[in-house]
C-alpha cells in the first residue's frame, strides 16, 4: 500500500525522462534572424530612450541642485535682510562691535602668550587711574568694571592702529605698556590722572555717539524702544529742540507703536495728549 504512490512517481519520472529525451532530440524551432535583430534593436533603443529620459529628468533640477539651492538660500537671506530693517540694524551693530572689539579667542591668545603680563599692566594702570580719577575728580562716578576698561583700552589701541594689520597690534601694545612701565614713579600719578581723564572722555564720547545713533534711528521711523515712556521722552526732546517736523513724524510712529498712549486711562495720556495737541495745533 505504501509503495504504490512511490512506484507511481517512479513510473512517471521514467516517463518524463523518456519524453524529455525524445523532445530534445527533435529539431527545435528558433526565431528568425530578422526577428532577433528587430528585438535586439528595440532593446538598444530602449536603453537609449531610458537613458535619455533619465538625463532629461536630471537636467532640470538634479544636475543644478546645488547651484539652485544655494541661489535660493542667498535670495532668502537677502530678502529677509532687505525686508527687515531691524535685522539690518542688529547685524550692522554686531558688525561694528566685532570690528571694534577683538574676539574672545584673540584675547585668550593674548593672555596665553608672553604679552599677558605686559598686557595686564595698562589694565591695572587704567583701573588705578580710574579709581584715582573717581576719588580725585568726581566722587559720584561709579567704579569701573575691569573687563570694560580692558575692552576700552583694547579698542583704543586698535583704533589708533586701524591702518595696521592685526599682527602689528601686539608689538605696539607692548611698546605702549613698556612705555607706561618705564615711566618714573614721580610722574605716575600725573600720567594716571591724564589717562583716567582720557578714558573718561572717550567713554563719554562713545555714549554720546550711541545715543545719537539710536536717536537717528528713531528719527528714521524705526522704534527700537520697548516702552512708551522712552518713546514719550524722545518725543519731548524733539519738541524741546523745536524739531517740529521730526516730532510730528515721530508722533505718528509712536501713535502706531503705542496706541495705548491715546487711552485716557493710561498714566502717560496727559503728557502725550499735551504734546499731540501742541504738535497738531501748529
Amino acid at each position, binding site marked *: 500500500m505504501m509503495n504504490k504512490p512511490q512506484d507511481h*512517481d517512479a513510473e*512517471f*519520472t521514467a*516517463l*518524463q*525522462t*523518456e*519524453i*524529455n529525451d*525524445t*523532445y530534445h*532530440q*527533435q*529539431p*527545435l*524551432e*528558433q*526565431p528568425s534572424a530578422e*526577428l*532577433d535583430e*528587430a*528585438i*535586439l534593436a*528595440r*532593446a*538598444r533603443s*530602449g*536603453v537609449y530612450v*531610458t*537613458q535619455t*529620459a533619465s538625463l532629461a529628468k536630471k537636467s532640470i533640477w538634479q544636475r543644478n541642485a546645488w547651484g539652485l539651492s544655494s541661489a535660493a538660500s542667498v535670495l532668502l537671506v537677502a530678502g529677509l535682510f532687505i525686508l527687515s530693517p531691524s535685522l539690518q540694524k542688529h547685524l550692522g551693530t554686531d558688525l561694528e562691535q566685532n570690528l571694534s572689539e577683538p574676539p574672545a579667542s584673540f584675547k585668550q591668545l593674548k593672555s596665553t602668550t608672553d604679552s599677558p603680563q605686559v598686557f595686564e599692566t595698562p589694565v591695572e594702570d587704567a583701573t588705578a587711574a580710574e579709581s584715582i580719577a573717581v576719588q580725585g575728580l568726581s566722587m559720584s562716578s561709579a567704579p569701573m568694571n575691569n573687563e570694560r576698561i580692558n575692552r576700552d583700552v583694547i579698542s583704543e589701541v586698535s583704533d589708533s592702529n586701524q591702518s595696521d594689520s592685526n599682527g602689528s597690534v601686539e608689538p605696539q601694545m607692548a611698546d605702549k605698556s613698556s612705555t607706561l612701565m618705564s615711566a618714573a614713579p614721580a610722574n605716575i600719578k600725573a600720567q594716571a590722572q591724564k589717562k583716567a581723564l582720557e578714558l573718561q572722555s572717550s567713554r563719554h564720547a562713545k555714549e554720546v555717539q550711541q545715543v545719537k545713533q539710536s536717536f537717528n534711528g528713531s528719527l528714521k521711523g524705526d522704534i527700537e524702544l520697548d516702552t512708551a515712556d522712552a518713546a514719550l521722552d524722545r518725543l519731548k526732546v524733539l519738541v524741546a529742540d523745536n524739531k517740529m517736523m521730526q516730532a510730528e513724524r515721530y508722533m505718528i510712529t509712536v501713535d502706531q507703536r503705542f496706541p495705548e498712549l491715546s487711552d485716557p486711562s493710561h498714566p502717560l495720556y496727559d503728557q502725550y495728549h499735551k504734546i499731540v495737541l501742541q504738535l497738531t495745533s501748529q
Partner: protein
Amino acid sequence: MVPTLIQSKDAQSKDALPKDDILVPQAGSDEQLMLDYQAGDISAFEVLYRKHKGPLYRYFVRQLHDQQLAEDLYQDTWGKVINASSQYQVSAKFTTWLYKIAHNLLIDHVRAVKPLDKVVPLGEDATMDSLQADAQASPEPQIEQQQQADMMKGCIAKLPAMQKEAFLLNIEMGMTAAMISDIANVTLEATKSRIRYAYQSIKQCISNQLQETT
C-alpha cells in the same frame, strides 16, 4: 536534465515568496543580467535574449497555429520586457516574470478573441487514449528519429491548451509545478495534474501512432 515535477518543501517555500520581497540576484543570473541591462549594458540583454529566445518562441509557436501571430506575440513579450526594464525589481525569478508576460499576452490576444486550438478541448482528467492519430500529422517514415519527432510535435499539438502550456513550460524551461501554477494562476494541484496528464497523453499518442505505422 530532467525537470522535477514534485518539489521539495524548500523549493515550494522559495517559490511561495511574497511578491514584494526583493531578492538578491546572483552574479550571472537572469535577474542580474536584467539589472545590468537596466543600467545600460546592452550585452547583458543579448545574453538574456539568447538564453530564452528558443523556449519562449516555441511556447508561442506550439500553442498557436498562426505563425505570424505567434511571432507577433513573441516580439510583444520582449517589447514588454524592454519597456519594463527601467522599473525592473528583483521580486521574483526572471523566467517566472517573462512567462507571466507571455501567458497574459496569450490570454489577452488569443483566448479572448480566437480559439487557441482547433482541437476539441479535453477535460482536465481526460487523456488521449480515445484519440486517433492525425493522418495529416503522421510524416512519411524516412528517418525514425525524424518520425518520432514529428509524432511528438503532432501529439503536443493535440494536447488541450491548459495541459500544453504546462507541458511546454515544464519540458522547455524545466519549471516546477509551483512556478507554472504561479504563471498560469492556477492551483498547484491542478498544475501537477495537467503536467502528469500531458506526459501520459503524449506517450499514449506516440504509441498509437507507432502502432498505426507498423
